[in-house]
Each structure stands twice: as structure tokens, then as C-alpha cells.
């Protein structure tokens, strides 16, 4: 009994230390964890996979450094999928902060593909296979303006080239030429694409969001407004699993590697909650008896 009482009144520094150890140990020797792919992620994968040749994929990268570890694997997995399938990609951000991270993800994936390429045809080339549209404030401008003309909203891309001069963008006018828009955000950006762009122009929207905000998004997935949904590190790992199993791409899977750490963290928290509750129930019973 004394042990239980002691455990249920642990100093918070001990809680921190145990959690830090549990989170860090699996990261020292990362190993890929196999996951079962759930329907929301499978639907998103299929929506991207079936984009017709004459349409493009728009990836809206709107995560910031705070949510980077959870969100970046999603962006990387979606870009790998699109480039492997030779789907044309346009990347943009609604805010300025995520621009650097969007570029980081793009640079990483294009480098992976170009290192393996044997010819120009195999390579992923800027302007031909993808464009980086950058950022146009305020967000309502691209959300609604792209339904009429993408190159009018983004007259110049991130690098300063005229958007309509890029080979890929010559035949792309507006949302009618977009297969699906995948919005990756630690906040509510995916909901804006639904509220403004989908409601008015009918563009298909998929989303990747943090686990902590997931409950906000399920209702829109259930109604079919989101074509698919990736939730947190697990969602990213499921998409990585599909990219590897269906496309035979064997690049580093950061989300699948992080699942070991996630498992340890969740189990540690569950154990602490159980210990806290056992101590609480013992104390409550003792108090009732003494009364």
C-alpha cells in the first residue's frame, strides 16, 4: 500500500525524467514499425493515385516548426507518391512561416529522385514536374482567386519566375485543372479550403492534420468533403506504408521510425494515469472507512 501511495504522489520531475527516457530510447536505434492502413489514409492515397494525366496535385504545406516532426513525413510521403507516379505538383503555403519548411520538403524529395535518375526524362525538373508557388497574402486571395485563375493569384512563383511561363503551368488555369488539393496543417487551413474553395469551385480536398486536432476534422471526412484524411504520426506512417508497399519506394520512413517513441510515450502516460488512479481509489476508500 505504501508503494502505491508513494507512486501516486510522485514528484513531477520524476514523471518528466521517465517520459524523456521513454521517448528518447527508441529514437537512439530507430526501427520501422509496421502499421495497419486505416480507411481515411487509404482513401487519400487512392485519391492522389487516380489523378488524371491532365490534372495536377496541389500540396498546401501550412505546418510550422512546432508541428514539423508530425507533419513533415506526411508532406514527404505525398510528394514521393506524386513524383513516382509522375503527377505534376504545385506547392504553396497560405502563411509565410511554413515557406521554409515547404522548400525543405521539396528539396529533400527532388534530391532523392534526382540521385536515382539515369536521364533527364527520369529526373524531377522544376517547371516541368513541379512548381513552388510560394505565398500570397491574405489567405482568402488564393483560397478564392485560384478558382478563377492560378497564375493571376501567383503571377510569380517562389523563385521569381513568371508562373505562366513555366511549362507545367501553361495548361493549368484554375481549380478545374486540379485533381486534388492536399492541405497539411497544424491548424485549420484544411477547413478553409473546404469552406471557401470547395464550396464555391468544387475542388477535391484531402487533409493531413496533427493528432491533437484530429477530432475537428472527422465530421468533414464523414460527409465526404475531405476525400481522405491523415491523422498525426500514425497517419503519416500509414501513408509511408502505402508508398513503400504499392510503389516499391524504399526511402527513409521517418514517421514509421518515430512510432516506437510514440508507443513508449503513450504507454508511459497510460501507466502514470493508472498509478495515479489506483492511488486515488485507495485513498478514497480509506477516507470513506475512516468516516
Amino acid at each position, binding site marked *: 500500500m505504501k508503494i502505491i501511495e508513494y507512486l501516486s504522489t510522485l514528484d513531477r520531475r520524476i514523471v518528466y525524467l521517465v517520459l524523456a527516457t521513454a521517448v528518447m530510447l527508441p529514437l537512439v536505434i530507430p526501427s520501422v514499425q509496421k502499421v495497419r492502413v486505416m480507411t481515411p489514409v487509404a482513401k487519400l492515397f487512392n485519391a492522389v493515385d487516380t489523378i488524371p494525366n491532365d490534372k495536377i496535385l496541389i500540396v498546401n504545406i501550412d505546418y510550422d516548426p*512546432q508541428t514539423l516532426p508530425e507533419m513533415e513525413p506526411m508532406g514527404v510521403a505525398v510528394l514521393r507518391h506524386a513524383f513516382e507516379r509522375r503527377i505534376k505538383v504545385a506547392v504553396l503555403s497560405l502563411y509565410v512561416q511554413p515557406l521554409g519548411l515547404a522548400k525543405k520538403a521539396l528539396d529533400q524529395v527532388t534530391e532523392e529522385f534526382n540521385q536515382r535518375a539515369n536521364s533527364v526524362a527520369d529526373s524531377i525538373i522544376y517547371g516541368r514536374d513541379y512548381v513552388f508557388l510560394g505565398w500570397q497574402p491574405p489567405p482568402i486571395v488564393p483560397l478564392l482567386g485560384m478558382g478563377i485563375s492560378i497564375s493571376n493569384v501567383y503571377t510569380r512563383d517562389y523563385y521569381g519566375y513568371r508562373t505562366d511561363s513555366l511549362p507545367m503551368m501553361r495548361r493549368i488555369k484554375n481549380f478545374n485543372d486540379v485533381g486534388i488539393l492536399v492541405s497539411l496543417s497544424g491548424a485549420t487551413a484544411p477547413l478553409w479550403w473546404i469552406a471557401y474553395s470547395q464550396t464555391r469551385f468544387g475542388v477535391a480536398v484531402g487533409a493531413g492534420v496533427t493528432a491533437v486536432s484530429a477530432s475537428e476534422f*472527422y465530421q468533414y471526412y464523414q460527409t465526404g468533403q475531405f476525400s481522405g484524411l491523415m491523422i498525426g504520426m500514425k497517419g503519416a506512417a500509414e501513408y509511408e506504408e502505402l508508398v513503400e508497399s504499392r510503389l516499391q519506394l524504399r526511402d527513409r520512413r521517418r514517421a514509421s521510425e518515430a512510432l516506437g517513441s510514440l508507443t513508449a510515450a503513450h504507454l508511459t502516460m497510460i501507466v502514470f494515469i493508472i498509478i495515479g488512479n489506483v492511488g486515488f481509489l485507495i485513498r478514497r476508500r480509506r477516507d470513506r472507512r475512516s468516516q
Partner: protein
Amino acid sequence: MKRRFPLLLVLIFGILGIVPYYIPHATYQNFDNAMRNDFLRILSAFAIILGLVSLMRVHQDKIKRKRENWQYSYVLIIGFVISGIIGLLGGVEGELFLPTKIAGIQFDIQTLYLNIIVPLGSTMFALLAFFMASAAYRAFRARSIESSLLLAASFVIMIGVLPLADRISTHLPSFAQWIMDIPNVAAKRGITFGIALGGIATSLKIILGIERSWLGGKE
């Protein structure tokens, strides 16, 4: 006039924002597009400048009056000036005329962002896990039937999203998904309807000038 003019602006632009959803005619759609694409962008550019000037004034004032934690305002102003100079004269990736690489050390905006802002931001957010663990350990108690149900559901979700869940039972991930798909959506949809209706009512009150607290000062 000082109060009527902003109210008139809100009335006009509020209605202009609603109407394009109901008038699909090309003439009106083009007008709406021009308003949003040109007018709104110009306004937004001014708002950014206004925001930056205001930020500087607030922190200058804080230093002048030696308000609480005034020393940190120096960090902000110095960071603002340095990154402003590097960004404006050196470009995001050092493509402009200011050299952003000295003795092998790169300090263009993208490098500074990836090596200072990203680790700092990630570290701050990661600390949340420790506070959450500590708070859950101390406060997440099965005091009543409702809190016991919440506790049970949270355990199912926490375990259900792990790769381990499949090894415990193949039904566990599906059950976790069901909780998110059905009871969670039912509750969330009710809340969303409430928020949406409240939002519409408040927006109409602002557009029609009934709600005026945003103007500041006395009613």
C-alpha cells in the same frame, strides 16, 4: 462621422463578401475577383507594414518604460533588424548582393530559419508532452461515471493508434477508429452547428451595425 464611416465600410464590404455566392453572373464574378485580387492584396500589404511598425512601437515603449521583461524586447528588436537587413539585402537564400556566407558560415534567411527558428519552435512544442503527462498523472481521475468513460475512451484511442494495438487485438484499431468516427463526430457536429449559427448571427450583427464593440470606446 468618425463612427459612422467605419460602420458604413463594414456594411458595404460585408454585403460585397456575401453576394458573389448568390450571383454567378460573369460581370459580378469579375468585379468580385478584381476586388479580392487587387484591392484586398493592397490592403493586406499595408496591414503588414502597419503590423511591423506597431510591433516596433510596442517594444520601444516597453523598453522606455522598463515594463516587465523589457530586456527581451531588445532581443526582438535586434533580431528584427538583423533578419530584416539579411532578408532585404541578401535574399532568402543569399541570391541578392549582400554576402550571406563568410568563412564557410552561411547565414541567409533560409539557413537561419532552419537552424534557429525550427529547433526553438520544436523544442517549445515538445515541452507540452511533459506538461500533459504530469497533468494527466495528477488530474485525470475516475471520479464519476462520466470521467471513467472518458478515461476508458482515451485509453482505447491512445492504444488504438499504436502499431502495438494490432498485436493486442485486431479489433482494437477499428474500435478506436469507430470512437473517432461516430461518438466524436456526433458531439463535434453539434458543437460546430452551434458555433456556425453563432458566427452567422454575430457577423450579421456586425454588418448591420448592431454589434459595435469592435469600434472600441464607449457604445
